[in-house]
Structure formats: C-alpha cells, structure tokens
C-alpha cells in the first residue's frame, strides 16, 4: 500500500494495527496460561488470568477510541475505511474471547473431580483454540484471506468436540449422579470455548472484508 501524503495519517493507522496485534497477543497469552493452569490445577494462575482480563478490556477501549479519532479526524475511505471499521469489530470480538477465557478460569476454580475422557476432549478443544488464535495473529498482521479462511474451517472441529463433551457429560451424569456438579462445570467451560470459536470465525470475516470489501 502506498504511503499517505499526510504522514501522520499513516502513523495513526500503524498505531491502530500495533494496538490490535498487542490485543491478539494478550488474548493468545491468556489462552496459553489457561491450558497451563488447568493442566497443573493451579489456583494462582487461574486467579491471575481473571485479574489480567482488565488489561484486555483496556486495550479494547484504546482501540475503539483510536478508531473514533481516525473516523473523526481523517474521514477514512476505501481500504482505510474498511481497516478502521473492521479493527473496531475485531477488537470487540477479541475482548469477548478474553471474557470467555476468564469465565473458564473462574469455573476451573470450582472444578473438584475429573473425568479422563471428558478432560482429554476438553484439552483437545483448548489446544485447537490456541492454535487458531496463533494463526489469527498472523492473519491480522498480514491481512491474509487464505489464512483467515483456513482458521474459519477449524471451527467445525470445535463444534464437534463441544457436542462430544456434551454427550459424554450427560452419559456420566446418568451413571454417577453424585458427580453432576463437577460435570456441569465441564459443560459450562466447553460452552465458553465453543463461543470463542464463533468469535474467531467472526474475526476472520472482518479480515476478509478488509481485503476484499465484501462480507
């Protein structure tokens, strides 16, 4: 993309992109910590995930403020318009992903007993989301439609894992009614992960829109 005649305009857009990358990196880090926290049953790390969510909310506010400033002061058009409009929506979706990660961490704190088969599927789900988030970082940095497309396709596997966890949990609940509490926690946690998959798909649609101008 050519430089703007007004150089400070380029700087504004560059700063916006940097903020967005910082946000996706923070969300990805939270997801890595979540996997570590659940693997090691660490109350401290789960608590730190919950505390750090405020930084993600702050970054989202900064990005939205930056978008409003660019709309007001630069009146962006064409690619610039699509970039700024999409940055705001991508940021909101990343913030929601952060909320879902925080919610899983909250439920981890009350997780009392484990079920190997469900746990295995749950870890598969978390690993897949982490890999999707890492690729999303690359897709946002390079505005690459092909990467965005391949990320979106992975959501189908998230949905399959979610359905599997639901059926496994229901089976176990019937067999061992005394474990219903713990199992319902897994159900809730996997529901949060499933929502993360949906937010990632929405973000890939905005990446596509930036590049092609079409939804």
């Amino acid at each position, binding site marked *: *993309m*050519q*430089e*703007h*005649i*007004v150089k400070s*305009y380029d700087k504004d857009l560059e700063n916006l992109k940097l903020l967005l990358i910082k946000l996706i990196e923070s969300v990805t880090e939270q997801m890595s910590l979540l996997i570590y926290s659940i693997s090691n049953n660490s109350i401290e790390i789960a608590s730190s995930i919950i505390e750090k969510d405020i930084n993600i909310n702050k970054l989202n506010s900064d990005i939205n403020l930056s978008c409003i400033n660019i709309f007001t002061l630069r*009146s*962006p*058009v*064409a*690619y*610039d*318009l*699509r970039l700024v409009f999409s940055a705001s929506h991508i940021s909101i979706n990343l913030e929601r992903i952060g909320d879902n990660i925080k919610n899983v961490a909250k439920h981890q704190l009350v997780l009392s007993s484990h079920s190997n088969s469900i746990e295995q599927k749950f870890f598969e789900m978390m690993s897949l989301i982490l890999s999707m988030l890492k690729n999303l970082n690359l897709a946002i940095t390079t505005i690459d439609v092909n990467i965005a497309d391949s990320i979106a396709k992975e959501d189908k596997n998230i949905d399959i894992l979610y359905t599997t966890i639901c059926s496994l949990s229901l089976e176990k609940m019937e067999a061992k009614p005394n474990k219903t509490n713990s199992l319902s926690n897994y159900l809730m946690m996997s529901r949060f992960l499933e929502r993360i998959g949906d937010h990632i798909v929405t973000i890939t649609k905005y990446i596509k829109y930036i590049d*092609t*101008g*079409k939804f």
Partner: protein
Amino acid sequence: MSTEVKKITIQNLNVFYNKIQALFDINLYIIEKQVTALIGPSGCGKSTFLRCLNKMNDLIEGCNLSGSITISNQEIINNNINPVLVRTKVGMVFQKANPFIKSIYENIAYPIKIHGMYKDKKDIENKVLESLSKVGLLDEVKNRLHESATLLSGGQQQRLCIARAISINPEVILMDEPCSALDPIATAKIESLIEELSTNFTIIIVTHSMQQAARISQNTAFFHMGNLVEFGKTKEIFNNPKNKRTEDYISGRIG
C-alpha cells in the same frame, strides 16, 4: 425502486487544445435526476469534460472535440446545433458566484425575459419568486428584492446563481466547484439544495472535496491525466474502488 434513465451519453470523446490532448476516449453516461460527481486532481480534465456538456469549449480558440455527446438523445457535437439552445437546457454554476450587476430581482427576471419565457409582468414576477423560493433564498431577501445582488453574502450570491440557472427550466445543471469559496454553513445549504434539486434536475458537479462527493452524489467519475479511470456508484467508489489509482487518490496517497 425507480428505474435509472440515461440522460446524457458520452462516447469516444476526445478533446484537444491545439495539439495538446486534454481528454482521451471518454465513455460515460449520466443518469437522469441524480447527482454525478466528477473528481480528480487539478488538470485531470474534469472541468474540460464539464464544459463539453454545454458547448462552452466552443468559445475556446483551438479547442477541438471528436466523439459523441447526446443529451436526451440529441447529439450536440456532430451537428450544427445552436449553442444557446444547448445552454438553455444545460445550465451552469461556477466556482465563484457571478451575479449580474443588477438587482436581486433582475438577476432572475433578466434571463427569463431574454429567453422569452414570459412576457407578462406578473408571470415573470411569479417565476422570480418561485426560483428564489426553490433555493431557500426568498425569506432572506423578500424585503430587498430591488437591492443590488452584489450586496448579498457569498453563499447567498451562489444560491442566487443557482436560482438564475433553474429559472429557465433547464434539464441539466453543471456545477464547477460551487462551494469552494464558501464557509461550512453556506456549503451545507448548497449541498442540501443540490439534494432537493436532484428530484427535478440532472446534476453534474466537479468537486475537490472527497467528502462532498461522498455526501451528495449517487455516482462518481474519477478522472486522471485526461482519462476516465473509474466510474460507478459513489458508495462503491468510496468503500471499495476497483482501480488502484482511484484508491490512492481518494485516500490521499501518493499516486
């Protein structure tokens, strides 16, 4: 949904100033009762193009045109059509307001009389008042209709010129940067007026303000170095232009 009717069709238009070619093989159509904005850097040919539409280039020595321009299916280049007749159908408003050094009233009554539209004094007066009312100027000037038009503010003078242009019932109105010398309030009034007038007239406007083109037009044509680079719906041009030169120009990049 209203159907779009082509009011003006331009085919293979080439314009030369002596040996220098100013426009290269322009093909374009103008939709009836819509606003079409012409954008592009200085010297790109948009004003030259605008002047072709009411035969004003005929007044420039050494200016030669080839190709075809039809307005309501009437060819205006390749025949001996009377330029005055074309300009009756195609009015023009310029960058700088140019009222006659006459009273506000006479500024409008004069062209009505010259074109022989009405002879009866009462009919002329009605038409003057109607034209002033259409541009939202009547309430502002009704108590000083016989004062000199040059005493009006810049924005009022420009609206008076628009009133003068519409008083003789043209089909098309050409506007060459009509707001470039006006403050934001006067500009907003003209823009609002253009929107209202487009229900009855076909309007073509040259503007250097991208935001103005985006605000007021339904169609936009981007000219660069005498070529028509891109023409399409304004929403498409400003959201997702097809051509990289258009993208670079409208977003203020070095092209």
